[in-house]
């Protein structure tokens, strides 16, 4: 088993963090993982993406040519990575920012109004966690608690109770909508 997940969007949407939290959670639950960010000039152009591989044997390629899951948080990411998703895979996209759903019949398409949900929760920056929650449901490899624990570890718990609570809510909303 080797599952590739790509998170993609604008710089500032918390793309790298969402991937890192997923990798951390998978590691804590005993899976082999890799997390590979886009780095350098690409980031300065305003786009960001990262690739997470979750596997039950040591990961070969950290670059994924055919991801099973894509989280596209904006239009350009969907255009770029949508066609690469493996048949039978899942495309989760941010319907708050993307008007037209991807034109694929061989994958599951999951629109999520990530920005609206985050704004309802009172924290616009939590949109990434809505997407991550959906990923956890789709993967079905470990419970959502694994991710909330990893997120707490990543964000650092002290003095950030409100942020953690909101992010937990965002994860839960994404999880239950998927």
């Amino acid at each position, binding site marked *: 088993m080797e599952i590739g997940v790509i998170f993609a969007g604008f710089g500032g949407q918390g793309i790298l963090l969402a991937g890192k939290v997923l990798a951390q959670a998978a590691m804590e639950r005993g899976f082999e993982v*890799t997390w590979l960010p886009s*780095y350098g000039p690409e980031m300065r152009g305003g786009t960001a993406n990262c690739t997470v591989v979750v596997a039950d044997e040591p990961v070969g390629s950290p670059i994924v040519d055919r991801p099973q899951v894509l989280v596209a948080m904006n239009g350009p990411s969907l255009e770029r990575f949508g066609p690469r998703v493996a048949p039978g895979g899942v495309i989760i996209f941010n319907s708050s920012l993307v008007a037209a759903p991807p034109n694929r019949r061989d994958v599951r398409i999951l629109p999520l109004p990530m920005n609206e949900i985050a704004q309802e929760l009172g924290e616009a920056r939590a949109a990434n966690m809505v997407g991550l929650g959906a990923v956890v449901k789709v993967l079905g490899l470990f419970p959502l608690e694994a991710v909330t624990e990893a997120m707490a570890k990543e964000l650092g718990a002290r003095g950030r109770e409100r942020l953690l609570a909101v992010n937990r809510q965002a994860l839960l909303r994404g999880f239950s909508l998927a």
Partner: protein
Amino acid sequence: MKVLMRGNEAMAEAAIRAGCRCYFCYPITPQGELVEYMARHLPRRGGVFLQAESEVAAINMVYGAAAAGVRTMTSSSSPGISLKMEGISYLAGARLPAVIVNVMRAGPGLGNIAPAQGDYFQATKGGGHGDYRLIVLAPSTVQEAAELVMLAFDLSDRYRVPAMILADGMLGQMMEPVELPEPIPLERIPPKPWALSGAKGRDPNVASSFDLDPHRFREILRALWDVYREIERNEVRWEEYETEDAELVLVAYGTMGRICKTVVRRARKEGLRVGLFRPITLWPFPSEPLRKLASRVPVFLTVELSAGQMWEDVRLSVEGRAKTPFYGELGGVVPTPDEILSEVKKHVGG
């Protein structure tokens, strides 16, 4: 306990755990996190972090610390390593142990910061001037990067030969779970009676890379090459994966080595008998094990992020016993497992 770490950070932490107490650098992408980690952690743990005014200065500071007997390291990326080459040659000539990390980018020239393996020749065949070698270790996972940095310090001290870690931007930037090796207490590092540690009560030691008398210098270099031959006998490291029944063996190192592992798995699923030979020491190159394999494997497909550099060592090892095609990419482009698999299919399975 496993922790999720970037390759650059794991190499920095491993260096501190290996007893590195002097680190000199000049910043460059894609190894910036190594510099940042050292800046944050090394001073707190009793070491010296110094950002020099140039790469040339940094490598000469390494020379000084190494001569004083301290475990010392520098890191850079391709063009920065080119600037350090004169100093590296001096370290080799003066028999000073040091660790140099090269997180390669795509060259020549300024190039770009994408993953590439174009510095193989520079690392293994010289790069600096004169008759010398470096111990060159090529990790393919973050775990291995941490372990090989620790090993690099040990080997470099044992043989008094500088060691280089040859990584690339992908390994530097990616995160993976790491079980960090236990720190080595400084008192457990074997003493260095040759070091310039203060001559009170003994004759002065000298760290020098020259002798104006050709005959005397020849003897120094003969002794150095005896050491290189000893390293070739004792320190060759490699990994074989699914080679037992292979009709084609991929030869790849570092990042390309792990990507080729995925290729082997996909090929095996399609019933193709494909294996992987992954050199871990690029110098000394695992020639003997490869030669042995060549007595029963008909095709060795070398895959590199270069125009074909390690490929020369593969051909020298195989010595015509098998076919030795090459597949590579340039400029920081990384071939996908499927692209490599298509190349494999040109040579195996009908």
